[in-house]
């Protein structure tokens, strides 16, 4: 051991000396006054200050060392579906506001706030004294499926390229889509089944969790690279959503129902109701630029403290292969919620009665009911997507009006094939007297084929046209297995036109 240390000391000092000798080499003679060249080009007064895309960021404050940048990406689409019960519609997919602040040369703060399908939320509250009492009125108004969420919010302290300390709401590095999900970077107007439509990921992209970890890049020789990310996070949890239903029915009694639906949700940003952390990470190896292989995973408890402790294991394998104008990109994900039946038994024990309703004898006109039920729980999910793209720059396009005003307009014909396999999907769980009296599961397979043509103006803006065919096995309604087609049909043909852009 002693001699090994001495050997490394000698090697290190020799390298240091040799480097110094090389640095002393003067190079060619510069036949002009070195001071005549501005130290940093671009600061001389001969630059024209006219705005051209890429010449100036739209909203940036500060200087090279400390700056704050405001950015965003957004997307929308129009779609026509053949399945019953779905109207043609425009959808405002999302608007994501980004802030990127560099408060020191090696300290960065980044955040994204997402407005998904969001139009408005309006709250009205009123308290008045009247009729010998106090009346409190609260009204919440909003458009369907509106969502505001923090998608990311983290700091990063970069000790060196190979080791960066990161903390906050970080993107979970399972697969390759979740960590690179901006809509304007992709060419189809709908996200994949694996990352969004089912999803096969434990929860829909963009999936972020609160935690701390490390990430870094290591160059391996001149051509290869390793990238790693590893975090400890609060992690996903089985959590409740409260659904309120008011319903008129004839000849049955009208209904007022409060239902607590228990499904998998992203972890909290405050009290961790599981009292158990999860670990997650990804290792990516790129032997050559344009060729990447990623291996990722997640492991941690998914049940809250008041239920039996069970773990979620997720693994991902992904790849990108670029051959000139032709790209192949793919991702496979598996999510396994261990002991799901035991979890439901524990849930039954905690709930007592799954449904409680006021009898008609006590309330002949109105049925009031409370219910507790699982929502979209599946024991084992796995799936993949495979996308093929070709970047085509025909002369008639590059020399057209588009070529004059945009730096790299081109067309991208593309194809995506994807499948999701759901094993042990809970279709019925009856709870009575603190027992799970009925537990019914089903296995399903979802297939989807999409072909499309994207027109990319530059790296930040794209128009997307696509045809998509989706089917589920066993005649199961699509509404039961995917979260974006509310139809009883088991097949759907969709035509979509979308736009995505960012700055």
């Amino acid at each position, binding site marked *: 051991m002693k001699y090994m*240390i001495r050997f490394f*000391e000698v090697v290190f000092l020799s390298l*240091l000396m040799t480097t110094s000798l090389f640095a002393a*080499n*003067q*190079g*060619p*003679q*510069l*036949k*002009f006054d*070195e001071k*005549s*060249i*501005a130290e*940093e*080009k*671009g600061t001389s007064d*001969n*630059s*024209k200050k*006219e705005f*051209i895309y*890429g*010449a100036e*960021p739209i909203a*940036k404050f500060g200087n*090279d060392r400390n700056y704050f*940048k405001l950015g965003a990406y957004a997307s929308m689409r129009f779609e026509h579906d053949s399945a019953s019960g779905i109207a043609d519609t425009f959808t405002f997919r999302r608007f994501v506001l980004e802030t*990127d602040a*560099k408060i020191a*040369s090696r300290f*960065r703060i980044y955040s994204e706030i997402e407005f998904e399908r969001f139009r408005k939320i309006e709250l009205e509250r009123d308290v008045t004294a009247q009729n010998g009492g106090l009346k409190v009125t609260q009204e919440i108004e909003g458009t369907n499926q509106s969502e505001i969420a923090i998608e990311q919010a983290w700091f990063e302290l970069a*000790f*060196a*390229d*190979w080791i960066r300390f990161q903390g906050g709401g970080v993107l979970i590095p399972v697969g390759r889509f979740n960590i690179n999900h901006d809509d304007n*970077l992709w060419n189809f107007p709908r996200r994949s089944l694996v990352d969004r439509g089912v999803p096969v990921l434990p929860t829909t992209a963009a999936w972020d969790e609160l935690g701390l970890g490390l990430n870094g*890049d290591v*160059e391996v020789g*001149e*051509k*290869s*690279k390793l990238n790693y990310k590893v975090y400890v996070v609060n992690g996903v949890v089985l959590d409740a959503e409260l659904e309120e239903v008011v319903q008129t029915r004839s000849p049955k009694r009208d209904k007022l129902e409060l239902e607590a639906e228990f499904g998998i949700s992203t972890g909290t940003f405050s009290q961790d109701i599981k009292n158990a952390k999860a670990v997650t990470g990804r290792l990516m190896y790129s032997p050559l*630029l344009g060729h*990447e292989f990623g291996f990722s995973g997640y492991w941690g408890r998914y049940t809250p403290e008041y239920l039996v402790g069970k773990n979620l294991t997720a693994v991902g394998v992904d790849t*990108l292969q*670029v051959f000139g*104008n032709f*790209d192949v990109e793919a991702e496979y994900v598996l999510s396994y919620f261990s002991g799901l039946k035991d979890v439901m038994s524990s849930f039954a024990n905690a709930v007592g009665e799954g449904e409680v309703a006021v009898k008609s004898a006590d309330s002949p006109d109105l049925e009031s009911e409370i219910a507790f039920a699982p929502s979209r729980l599946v024991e084992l999910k796995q799936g993949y997507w495979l996308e093929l793209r070709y*970047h085509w*720059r025909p*002369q008639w396009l*590059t*020399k057209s009006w588009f070529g*004059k005003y945009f*730096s*790299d307009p081109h067309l991208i014909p593309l194809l995506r094939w994807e499948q999701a396999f759901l094993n042990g999907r809970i279709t019925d769980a009856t709870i009575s007297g603190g027992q799970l009296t009925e537990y019914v599961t089903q296995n399903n397979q979802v297939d989807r084929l999409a072909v499309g043509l994207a027109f990319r103006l530059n*790296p*930040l803006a794209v128009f997307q046209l696509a045809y998509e065919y989706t089917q589920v096995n066993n005649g199961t309604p699509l509404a039961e297995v995917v979260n974006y087609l509310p139809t009883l049909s088991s097949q759907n043909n969709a035509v979509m036109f979308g736009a995505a852009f960012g700055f």
Partner: protein
Amino acid sequence: MKILFFKIILFLFPAVLFAQSTVSLTPPEALRLIFKDSEEVIKEDQVVTSKIQEKAKKFLGDELPKVRYTFFIGKTRDKIDGYALIDEEVGKVLPITFVTRINPDGKVARVEVMVYRESHGGEVATKRFLNQFRNKSLNDELRLHGAIVNVTGATLSSHALVKGVRRALALWQIFYGKS
């Protein structure tokens, strides 16, 4: 044991210093690096007239952002070894300053990033990315998703360098090309 620990830290510490993503080369340092085999380097200022702008638009489909460009010419015993242009292009937020060396046949000899100011995406300054430009000439294939593969997660910085190198090749063709 403490001495061993201290020596390990001392041994690893330079890895922290050397493994920085922000490249920093002044113009004289950059010129000495890319013309290291030349005897001397001279400079020539080229003014962008309206005729030059028209020619640039034909090559690039876009106007030149500056009114003057300075070319540096490496020579050995009156023989021209190559030409170089120092320029900048904005990546995602801040300008990337880089130098392009062009051979007398109009092909790229070498590209070096002189200053990379962004907080991430610095891989575009590595040989892994920049070596792709070697021996490339100005044609429609000199694009991302063409002859140049972008760095995942640094598409805008990759795009900026492609745009900048294309501009350097176009300017060389205008001022020094034979046809």
